Protein backbone atom coordinates (compact mmCIF):
# COMPACT_ATOMS: atom_id res chain seq x y z
CA UNK A 1 0.00 0.00 0.00
CA UNK A 2 1.11 3.53 -0.57
CA UNK A 3 -0.04 6.73 1.05
CA UNK A 4 0.02 9.68 -1.29
CA UNK A 5 0.91 13.24 -0.36
CA UNK A 6 -2.53 14.47 -1.39
CA UNK A 7 -4.16 12.28 1.26
CA UNK A 8 -1.79 13.49 3.95
CA UNK A 9 -2.42 17.13 3.07
CA UNK A 10 -6.19 16.56 3.12
CA UNK A 11 -5.87 14.89 6.53
CA UNK A 12 -3.82 17.79 7.89
CA UNK A 13 -6.28 20.40 6.61
CA UNK A 14 -9.28 18.53 8.03
CA UNK A 15 -7.44 18.17 11.37
CA UNK A 16 -6.99 21.94 11.54
CA UNK A 17 -10.61 22.60 10.58
CA UNK A 18 -12.02 20.16 13.17
CA UNK A 19 -9.68 21.41 15.93
CA UNK A 20 -10.61 25.04 15.33
CA UNK A 21 -14.32 24.25 15.12
CA UNK A 22 -14.68 22.35 18.35
CA UNK A 23 -12.23 24.36 20.46
CA UNK A 24 -13.80 27.69 19.48
CA UNK A 25 -17.40 26.54 20.01
CA UNK A 26 -16.67 24.76 23.29
CA UNK A 27 -14.79 27.80 24.58
CA UNK A 28 -17.58 30.13 23.51
CA UNK A 29 -20.22 28.12 25.34
CA UNK A 30 -18.23 28.20 28.55
CA UNK A 31 -16.65 24.77 28.96
CA UNK A 32 -13.43 26.16 30.55
CA UNK A 33 -15.35 28.46 32.89
CA UNK A 34 -16.90 25.94 35.24
CA UNK A 35 -17.16 22.16 35.63
CA UNK A 36 -20.62 21.03 34.64
CA UNK A 37 -20.57 17.88 36.77
CA UNK A 38 -18.48 16.58 39.68
CA UNK A 39 -16.34 14.36 37.43
CA UNK A 40 -15.09 17.33 35.41
CA UNK A 41 -14.10 19.09 38.62
CA UNK A 42 -12.03 16.05 39.69
CA UNK A 43 -10.18 15.97 36.36
CA UNK A 44 -9.50 19.72 36.44
CA UNK A 45 -8.16 19.63 40.00
CA UNK A 46 -5.94 16.62 39.25
CA UNK A 47 -4.43 18.25 36.18
CA UNK A 48 -3.81 21.44 38.15
CA UNK A 49 -1.97 19.42 40.78
CA UNK A 50 0.21 17.86 38.07
CA UNK A 51 1.29 21.31 36.90
CA UNK A 52 -1.34 22.11 34.30
CA UNK A 53 -4.00 24.77 34.00
CA UNK A 54 -7.22 24.54 36.05
CA UNK A 55 -9.56 25.95 33.38
CA UNK A 56 -8.02 23.83 30.63
CA UNK A 57 -8.51 20.84 32.94
CA UNK A 58 -12.19 21.74 33.31
CA UNK A 59 -12.41 21.86 29.50
CA UNK A 60 -10.92 18.37 29.17
CA UNK A 61 -13.09 17.02 31.98
CA UNK A 62 -16.21 18.37 30.34
CA UNK A 63 -15.24 16.67 27.08
CA UNK A 64 -14.89 13.34 28.92
CA UNK A 65 -18.10 13.69 30.92
CA UNK A 66 -20.52 14.86 28.24
CA UNK A 67 -20.72 14.70 24.41
CA UNK A 68 -19.86 18.33 23.61
CA UNK A 69 -18.81 19.93 20.34
CA UNK A 70 -15.92 17.45 20.02
CA UNK A 71 -18.31 14.51 19.91
CA UNK A 72 -20.60 16.61 17.76
CA UNK A 73 -17.89 17.15 15.16
CA UNK A 74 -17.13 13.43 15.03
CA UNK A 75 -20.81 12.50 14.75
CA UNK A 76 -21.35 15.12 12.04
CA UNK A 77 -18.41 13.71 10.04
CA UNK A 78 -19.65 10.12 10.44
CA UNK A 79 -23.24 10.89 9.50
CA UNK A 80 -22.24 13.16 6.63
CA UNK A 81 -20.04 10.34 5.32
CA UNK A 82 -22.92 7.85 5.53
CA UNK A 83 -26.05 9.88 4.75
CA UNK A 84 -25.13 13.28 3.35
CA UNK A 85 -26.39 16.61 4.65
CA UNK A 86 -29.57 15.06 6.13
CA UNK A 87 -27.34 12.80 8.20
CA UNK A 88 -25.76 15.84 9.80
CA UNK A 89 -29.20 17.03 10.89
CA UNK A 90 -29.95 13.60 12.40
CA UNK A 91 -26.58 13.72 14.20
CA UNK A 92 -27.61 17.07 15.71
CA UNK A 93 -30.73 15.47 17.19
CA UNK A 94 -28.78 12.45 18.54
CA UNK A 95 -26.07 14.61 20.12
CA UNK A 96 -28.74 16.78 21.74
CA UNK A 97 -30.36 13.70 23.32
CA UNK A 98 -26.95 12.45 24.48
CA UNK A 99 -26.19 15.83 26.01
CA UNK A 100 -29.40 15.83 27.98
CA UNK A 101 -28.76 12.29 29.22
CA UNK A 102 -25.38 13.48 30.58
CA UNK A 103 -26.86 16.40 32.59
CA UNK A 104 -25.85 19.20 30.22
CA UNK A 105 -28.07 21.96 28.74
CA UNK A 106 -26.88 20.90 25.28
CA UNK A 107 -26.00 24.18 23.59
CA UNK A 108 -22.33 23.39 22.90
CA UNK A 109 -22.93 19.96 21.40
CA UNK A 110 -25.86 20.98 19.22
CA UNK A 111 -24.28 24.12 17.79
CA UNK A 112 -20.97 22.28 17.31
CA UNK A 113 -22.64 19.50 15.33
CA UNK A 114 -24.61 21.91 13.18
CA UNK A 115 -21.63 24.13 12.40
CA UNK A 116 -19.46 21.08 11.64
CA UNK A 117 -22.13 19.81 9.23
CA UNK A 118 -22.23 23.16 7.44
CA UNK A 119 -18.41 23.36 7.24
CA UNK A 120 -18.10 19.80 5.90
CA UNK A 121 -20.80 20.54 3.35
CA UNK A 122 -19.00 23.69 2.19
CA UNK A 123 -15.65 21.89 1.94
CA UNK A 124 -17.01 18.66 0.41
CA UNK A 125 -15.92 19.72 -3.05
CA UNK A 126 -12.23 19.59 -2.11
CA UNK A 127 -12.06 17.15 0.82
CA UNK A 128 -14.17 14.01 1.03
CA UNK A 129 -16.11 13.52 4.32
CA UNK A 130 -14.09 10.43 5.33
CA UNK A 131 -11.00 12.59 5.80
CA UNK A 132 -12.88 14.60 8.41
CA UNK A 133 -13.38 11.43 10.49
CA UNK A 134 -9.62 10.87 10.54
CA UNK A 135 -9.00 14.56 11.13
CA UNK A 136 -11.29 14.61 14.16
CA UNK A 137 -9.56 11.57 15.67
CA UNK A 138 -6.20 13.30 15.12
CA UNK A 139 -7.54 16.49 16.74
CA UNK A 140 -8.87 14.70 19.82
CA UNK A 141 -5.58 12.77 20.06
CA UNK A 142 -3.62 16.01 20.33
CA UNK A 143 -5.77 17.04 23.29
CA UNK A 144 -6.68 13.87 25.19
CA UNK A 145 -3.94 11.46 24.23
CA UNK A 146 -0.60 13.18 23.74
CA UNK A 147 0.44 15.31 26.70
CA UNK A 148 -2.30 16.33 29.11
CA UNK A 149 -0.49 19.06 31.04
CA UNK A 150 0.57 20.92 27.91
CA UNK A 151 -2.87 20.55 26.32
CA UNK A 152 -4.56 22.00 29.40
CA UNK A 153 -2.19 24.98 29.30
CA UNK A 154 -2.98 25.60 25.62
CA UNK A 155 -6.73 25.37 26.22
CA UNK A 156 -6.56 27.70 29.23
CA UNK A 157 -4.52 30.19 27.20
CA UNK A 158 -7.10 30.16 24.39
CA UNK A 159 -9.95 30.62 26.85
CA UNK A 160 -8.22 33.59 28.46
CA UNK A 161 -7.40 35.12 25.08
CA UNK A 162 -11.06 34.95 24.06
CA UNK A 163 -12.11 36.43 27.40
CA UNK A 164 -14.41 33.54 28.28
CA UNK A 165 -13.10 32.70 31.77
Amino acid at each position, binding site marked *: *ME*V*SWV*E*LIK*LLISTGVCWTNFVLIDTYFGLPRKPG*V*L*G*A*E*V*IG*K*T*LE*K*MGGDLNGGYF*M*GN*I*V*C*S*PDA*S*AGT*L*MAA*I*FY*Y*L*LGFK*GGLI*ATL*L*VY*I*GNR*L*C*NDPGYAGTFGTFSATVIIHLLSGFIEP*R*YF*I*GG*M*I*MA*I*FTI*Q*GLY*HVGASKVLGYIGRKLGMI
Partner: protein
Amino acid sequence: MDAVLLLIGVISFVVGLRVFLTKNRVQRLLYLCCLNFAISALIALYIKSPMGGVVAAAYFIGSTLSSNAIAHTIGKVQRLEGRGEW
Protein backbone atom coordinates in the same frame (compact mmCIF):
# COMPACT_ATOMS: atom_id res chain seq x y z
CA MET B 1 -6.67 0.01 3.88
CA ASP B 2 -6.03 3.66 3.20
CA ALA B 3 -4.58 6.63 5.03
CA VAL B 4 -7.61 7.31 7.23
CA LEU B 5 -7.96 3.73 8.49
CA LEU B 6 -4.20 3.48 9.02
CA LEU B 7 -4.13 6.72 11.01
CA ILE B 8 -7.04 5.73 13.24
CA GLY B 9 -5.56 2.27 13.78
CA VAL B 10 -2.17 3.63 14.82
CA ILE B 11 -3.74 6.19 17.15
CA SER B 12 -6.00 3.64 18.84
CA PHE B 13 -3.02 1.28 19.27
CA VAL B 14 -0.87 3.99 20.88
CA VAL B 15 -3.66 5.19 23.15
CA GLY B 16 -4.65 1.66 24.12
CA LEU B 17 -1.05 0.98 25.15
CA ARG B 18 -0.93 4.16 27.21
CA VAL B 19 -4.12 3.15 29.06
CA PHE B 20 -2.19 0.17 30.42
CA LEU B 21 1.06 2.03 31.07
CA THR B 22 -0.22 5.00 33.04
CA LYS B 23 -0.84 4.66 36.76
CA ASN B 24 -2.94 7.79 37.28
CA ARG B 25 -6.63 6.90 37.35
CA VAL B 26 -7.79 10.27 36.04
CA GLN B 27 -5.34 10.27 33.14
CA ARG B 28 -6.47 6.75 32.30
CA LEU B 29 -9.99 8.14 31.92
CA LEU B 30 -8.73 10.78 29.47
CA TYR B 31 -6.96 8.16 27.36
CA LEU B 32 -10.10 6.01 27.40
CA CYS B 33 -12.09 8.98 26.05
CA CYS B 34 -9.72 9.23 23.08
CA LEU B 35 -9.97 5.44 22.57
CA ASN B 36 -13.77 5.68 22.51
CA PHE B 37 -13.57 8.32 19.77
CA ALA B 38 -11.33 6.05 17.72
CA ILE B 39 -13.51 2.95 18.16
CA SER B 40 -16.63 4.88 17.23
CA ALA B 41 -14.96 6.12 14.04
CA LEU B 42 -13.77 2.59 13.19
CA ILE B 43 -17.31 1.21 13.59
CA ALA B 44 -18.65 3.79 11.13
CA LEU B 45 -15.81 3.25 8.64
CA TYR B 46 -16.20 -0.53 8.60
CA ILE B 47 -20.02 -0.71 8.58
CA LYS B 48 -20.74 1.53 5.62
CA SER B 49 -24.49 1.78 6.10
CA PRO B 50 -26.87 4.14 7.95
CA MET B 51 -27.25 1.53 10.69
CA GLY B 52 -23.49 1.71 11.27
CA GLY B 53 -23.85 5.39 12.04
CA VAL B 54 -26.60 4.71 14.53
CA VAL B 55 -24.47 2.00 16.19
CA ALA B 56 -21.50 4.39 16.39
CA ALA B 57 -23.64 7.10 17.95
CA ALA B 58 -25.19 4.68 20.45
CA TYR B 59 -21.77 3.30 21.41
CA PHE B 60 -20.30 6.76 21.82
CA ILE B 61 -23.15 8.16 23.93
CA GLY B 62 -23.18 5.06 26.11
CA SER B 63 -19.43 5.16 26.69
CA THR B 64 -19.62 8.86 27.57
CA LEU B 65 -22.40 8.10 30.05
CA SER B 66 -20.26 5.46 31.75
CA SER B 67 -17.20 7.77 31.81
CA ASN B 68 -19.40 10.40 33.43
CA ALA B 69 -20.48 7.93 36.12
CA ILE B 70 -16.91 6.70 36.75
CA ALA B 71 -15.52 10.24 37.11
CA HIS B 72 -18.39 11.12 39.43
CA THR B 73 -17.64 8.06 41.56
CA ILE B 74 -13.94 8.98 41.79
CA GLY B 75 -14.95 12.42 43.05
CA LYS B 76 -17.36 10.96 45.61
CA VAL B 77 -14.73 8.50 46.87
CA GLN B 78 -12.19 11.31 47.26
CA ARG B 79 -14.69 13.28 49.31
CA LEU B 80 -15.45 10.30 51.53
CA GLU B 81 -11.78 9.55 52.13
CA GLY B 82 -11.03 13.22 52.66
CA ARG B 83 -7.95 13.44 50.50
CA GLY B 84 -7.38 15.62 47.49
CA GLU B 85 -5.35 13.19 45.45
CA TRP B 86 -6.30 10.75 42.78
